[in-house]
C-alpha cells in the first residue's frame, strides 16, 4: 500500500510538470531499422518499439547495458534465476532482460542486425556489450520471427554500434564504487572513399562481497577488453562494402570454498569469456528502386572456468562452452511509391561443444522470407512470412501482419499479430551430465538413447529395466507463440506523447524437465526434457513522453503483467493442486484467486526518468524504477506461486547523473545508482548498495583546436 502511494506521488509530480508545457517544440522524427529491416521513420512503424538514443545514453552515463535497459517501461531485469515454471537454472553468467513477461531466453539479441551467440542456460550476458560504443538501441516487442527466425518470440533487442561520421577522436575515463575503472578511446576517420570507426576499451572491477561470513566474494573481480573496427568502403557509386570486426574478452578471478572429501578447501582460478565477430556486407544498388545485399557473418563465443585447489594446486573443476556461428544471407529490396518489398534467403551453420556434452555438435538452418510494406497517408501495412528448416527440429512457418492507421494528425492506432518460435536450447538437446556429488543424471533429448545404453552397459541400470521406450524418442519440438499487440498513440499538445498498449502472447510446447520412470542403481533419478506446458502472458503498457520548454524531458512508463500457466489453471479447476502451509502443516486445495502466475515476474512495474537542461551547460538526469512484488520460491509443496510468503517485496531503484559540458571539448559527469541503497542479499544479489561514479569525456579534436588558438 505504501509503495503504491509513493508511486502515485511520483506520477503526480510528473504530470504537474507536464501541465506547464509550451506547445511550440516539435521533436525530430527518429529513424529505425529493426522493425521491418528497412529504414523507417519511427512514426510509421506499426509495432511497439522503444528507442534509446546516443544522447539518452550520454545523459544516463551508465556503463552496464542491463542498467540502461531497465530504465525503460516493460523491460525488467530478471534476477539470476530464470523463470521457474520455464524450468530455469540459477544463472551465474549474467542477468537477462524480461520482455512482456517472457524470460530473457525468448528475446533475440542482435548487434548491428546480426544475432549474437553464446547463451548460458538461455541467457545472453548483455553486459558483454560496451555501452560507450552504442549509437542506438531498438527494442521491438512481440514476435518478429517473420524476419529474424528463432528466438524472436517476445521481441528483438538490436544494438546499433557507432559508425564513422566525421574525423573525430574521443576518449573517456571512468571511475566508480568497488574500484571500478574504465578507459576507452574511439576514433572516426573519413578518408576519400573509406570511413572507419575504431573503439578500444578496458574495464575492470574489484567486485563486491555481500556476506562476509561466507568465504569468497558475491561478485568476483574481473577485467575485460573490447576492440571493434567498422569500415565502409565506397567501391563505386553503386557498390558499397561494409566490414566490421569485434573482439571481447573478460577474465574473472575466482576464489571460493568447496567441499573436497568432506573437507572445506579453498579453490582459486579464472573464468575466461571470449566473444568475437566478423561481419561483411556488400550492397549493390541495382537501379533507383532496388538494391541487393550479400552478408557473411561469422561469430564465436567461448567460456572456460578452471579452478585449482589452493593447498596442492590440483585441478578441481574445468568447464567450458565453445560456440561458432556462420550466417550467409542474400537480401533484395525494392521500393516503389513508398511501398517496399523485401525478400531474403540464407543458410546458418553452427557448432557447439561443452564440458557437459558428449561431443561436438553441428547444426544448420536454411531459411527464406518475404515482406511487403504498403504506405499511404493514412495507413501503413506490413505483411511478412518466413520459413525456417533447422536440422534438429520441425520446420517453422512464421507470418506477421501489422497495420497502423492515422485517425488524424494527433492520433494513431497500431495493431499486429505474429507467430514466433524458440529453438530447444542446447542443454535440453545435448546435456550429458552426471552430478558428481549427488549422482543424478541429466540427458538432453538427443543423448537419451546413447546415455541410457551406456548406463546399462556400465551396470548403472539393473538388467531387468526396459529402456526400449526411451531409445527412439522424437526430437523436441520448437516452442511456439502467437503474439498480439495493439497500441493507441496520442500526440497531445505536440510535445506530449502518450502511448497505451496491450499485448498477449500464447505459448505452446514449452519444454520442461521430467523424471524417467526408473532410477539408477545408486537410487538416483534420471532426467530428460519434454514439450509439456502451455502458458500465456498478457498485459498493458502505458508511456508518456513530455518536453517542457525544450528544457525538461519527462518519460513515465508503467506495465501491468499477467503470466499464467494454463495447465496449472486447469489443475486448480480440477482440484489437483494442494497447498500445505509450512507453519501449520494444514493442507487444502489451492484456489484460482490464490494463483499468482509464473515466478519471478512483477505484476506492476514502472519507470520515470526526468532530464533537465540547466543553465551553464549542466544536465541533470534523475530516474526511478519500481519493481512490484514478484514470486521467488515455493514454500507450500506444490511448486506454484500461491502464497503471500512466496513473494519478494516491491522495491525502488533510484539514480541520478549530473553532467557539465565545457566548451573546450570536455564533459564531466558524476552520478549515483541505487540511491536508496535497496538490498536483498538472497534474492537480489546483483544489488550491492549505493554506487557512485565519475566520468570524464574528452573530444580531443576540440581540445587540440582550442590549444592551437591560444
Amino acid at each position, binding site marked *: 500500500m505504501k509503495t503504491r502511494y509513493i508511486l502515485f506521488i511520483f506520477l503526480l509530480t510528473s504530470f504537474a510538470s507536464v501541465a506547464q508545457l509550451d506547445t511550440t517544440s516539435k521533436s525530430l522524427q527518429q529513424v529505425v531499422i529493426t522493425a521491418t529491416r528497412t529504414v523507417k521513420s519511427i512514426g510509421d512503424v506499426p509495432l511497439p518499439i522503444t528507442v534509446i538514443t546516443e544522447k539518452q545514453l550520454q545523459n544516463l552515463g551508465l556503463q552496464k547495458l542491463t542498467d540502461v535497459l531497465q530504465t525503460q517501461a516493460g523491460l525488467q531485469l530478471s534476477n539470476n534465476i530464470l523463470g521457474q515454471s520455464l524450468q530455469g537454472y540459477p544463472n551465474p553468467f549474467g542477468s537477462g532482460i524480461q520482455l512482456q513477461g517472457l524470460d530473457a531466453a525468448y528475446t533475440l539479441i542482435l548487434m548491428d542486425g546480426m544475432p549474437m551467440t553464446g547463451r548460458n542456460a538461455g541467457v545472453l550476458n548483455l553486459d558483454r556489450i560496451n555501452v560507450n560504443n552504442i549509437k542506438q538501441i531498438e527494442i521491438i516487442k512481440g514476435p518478429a520471427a517473420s524476419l529474424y527466425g528463432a528466438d524472436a518470440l517476445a521481441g528483438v533487442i538490436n544494438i546499433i554500434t557507432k559508425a564513422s561520421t566525421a574525423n573525430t577522436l574521443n576518449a573517456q575515463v571512468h571511475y566508480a564504487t568497488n574500484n571500478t575503472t574504465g578507459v576507452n578511446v574511439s576514433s572516426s576517420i573519413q578518408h576519400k572513399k573509406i570511413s572507419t570507426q575504431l573503439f578500444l576499451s578496458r574495464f575492470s572491477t574489484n567486485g563486491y562481497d555481500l556476506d562476509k561470513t561466507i568465504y569468497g566474494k558475491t561478485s568476483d573481480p574481473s577485467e575485460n577488453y573490447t576492440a571493434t573496427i567498422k569500415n565502409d568502403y565506397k567501391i563505386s557509386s553503386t557498390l558499397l562494402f561494409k566490414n566490421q570486426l569485434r573482439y571481447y574478452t573478460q577474465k574473472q578471478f575466482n576464489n571460493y570454498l568447496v*567441499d573436497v572429501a568432506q573437507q572445506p578447501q579453498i579453490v582459486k582460478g579464472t573464468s575466461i569469456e571470449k566473444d568475437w565477430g566478423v561481419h561483411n556486407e556488400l550492397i549493390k544498388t541495382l537501379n533507383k528502386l532496388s538494391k541487393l545485399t550479400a552478408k557473411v557473418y561469422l561469430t564465436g563465443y567461448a567460456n572456460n572456468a578452471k579452478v585449482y585447489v589452493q593447498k596442492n594446486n590440483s585441478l578441481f573443476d574445468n568447464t567450458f562452452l565453445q560456440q561458432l556461428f556462420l550466417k550467409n544471407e542474400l537480401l533484395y529490396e525494392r521500393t516503389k511509391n513508398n511501398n517496399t518489398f523485401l525478400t531474403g534467403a540464407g543458410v546458418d551453420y553452427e557448432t557447439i561443444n561443452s564440458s557437459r556434452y558428449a561431443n561436438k555438435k553441428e547444426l544448420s538452418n536454411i531459411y527464406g522470407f518475404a515482406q511487403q510494406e504498403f504506405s499511404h497517408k493514412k495507413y501503413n501495412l506490413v505483411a511478412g512470412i518466413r520459413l525456417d528448416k533447422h536440422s534438429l527440429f520441425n520446420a517453422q512457418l512464421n507470418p506477421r501482419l501489422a497495420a497502423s492507421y492515422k485517425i488524424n494528425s494527433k492520433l494513431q492506432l497500431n495493431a499486429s499479430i505474429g507467430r514466433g518460435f524458440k529453438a530447444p536450447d542446447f542443454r535440453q538437446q545435448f546435456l550429458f551430465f552426471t552430478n558428481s556429488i549427488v549422482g543424478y543424471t541429466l540427458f538432453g533429448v538427443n543423448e537419451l538413447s546413447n546415455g541410457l545404453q551406456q548406463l546399462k552397459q556400465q551396470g548403472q541400470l539393473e538388467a531387468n529395466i526396459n529402456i526400449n521406450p526411451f531409445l527412439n524418442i522424437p526430437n523436441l519440438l520448437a516452442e511456439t507463440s502467437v503474439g498480439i499487440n495493439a497500441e493507441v498513440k496520442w500526440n497531445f499538445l505536440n510535445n506530449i506523447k502518450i502511448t497505451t498498449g496491450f499485448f498477449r502472447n500464447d505459448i505452446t510446447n514449452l519444454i520442461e524437465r521430467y523424471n524417467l520412470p526408473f532410477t539408477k542403481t545408486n537410487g538416483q533419478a534420471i532426467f530428460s526434457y519434454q514439450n509439456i506446458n502451455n502458458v500465456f502472458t498478457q498485459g498493458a503498457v502505458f508511456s508518456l513522453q513530455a518536453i517542457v520548454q525544450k528544457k525538461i524531458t519527462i518519460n513515465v512508463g508503467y506495465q501491468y503483467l499477467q503470466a499464467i500457466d494454463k495447465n496449472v489453471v486447469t489443475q486448480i479447476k480440477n482440484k489437483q493442486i*494442494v497447498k500445505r502451509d509450512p507453519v501449520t502443516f494444514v493442507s487444502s486445495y489451492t484456489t484460482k484467486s490464490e494463483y499468482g502466475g509464473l515466478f519471478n515476474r512483477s505484476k506492476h512495474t514502472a519507470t520515470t526518468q526526468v532530464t533537465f537542461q540547466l543553465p551553464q551547460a549542466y544536465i541533470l538526469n534523475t530516474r526511478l524504477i519500481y519493481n512490484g512484488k514478484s514470486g521467488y520460491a515455493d514454500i507450500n509443496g506444490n511448486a506454484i506461486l500461491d502464497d503471500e510468503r512466496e513473494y519478494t517485496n516491491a522495491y525502488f531503484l533510484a539514480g541520478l547523473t549530473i553532467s557539465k559540458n565545457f566548451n573546450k571539448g570536455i564533459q564531466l559527469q558524476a552520478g549515483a545508482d541505487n540511491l536508496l541503497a535497496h538490498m536483498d542479499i538472497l534474492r537480489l544479489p546483483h544489488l550491492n548498495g549505493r554506487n557512485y561514479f565519475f566520468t570524464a569525456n574528452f573530444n580531443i579534436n576540440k581540445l587540440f583546436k582550442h590549444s592551437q588558438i591560444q
Partner: protein
Amino acid sequence: MMAVIALVACSSLITSCKKDETPQITIVTKTDSLSVNFSSSKPFAFFNFKNGVVVANADSASTKWDFGLRFTTFILNSNAYGPGNAGAIFQNTLYSAVTEAPTTGYAYDTSSAQKAIKDGSWYNYNPTTRSFSPKAGQTFFFRTADNFYVKMELLAVDYAAFVGMQPDKLIYRFRYTYQANGSTKF
C-alpha cells in the same frame, strides 16, 4: 528438537492432543521427525511405526523396522531389503480426508533400481533454494513389516544445521496414523 516436535504435534493435530475426544485407542496418531543422511552412500535411517522409534542399523536384517530413508530414497522392509512384509502405495489424496487404507495393491522394492516409492516422485526440488519440498496433497499408505496399516504424510524436509560446505543430515518431518488393531480403517 523434541520440544519442537511436541509443539508441532499439538498445534497441527489438535484432534490428537484432545485425548478425551479420541475413543479408538487402537489408533496411534502423531507427528514425528527423522534425521537422515544427506548422502546416497551412507547408511539408511530405519523407522518403526508401531513404537514410533528409530531402529538401530544393527537390526537391518530384522522385522523391527518398516521403512528406511537416506537422502531422498525410501526402502521398505520386504523383498530386496528385508525379511518383513512391508509394502507401500503412494497416492494423490488429502491425508486428512483418508479414512481407510487400500487392502491390495501394495508395492515392494523388487530391486535397488525398482522401488515401491520412486526417488524424485514425491518432492519438488528447487535449484534456487536447494530445497526438497514434499509435494502437497499426497498420502503414503504403508503395510508394516508385520502387516499393520499406516497412512503417512510428509510435511517438510529441511537441512540440519551444519558447519562447512554442505550438511550431513536432512530432517524429515511427517505425520502418520497407525492402526494397531490390524484393520485398514483409520
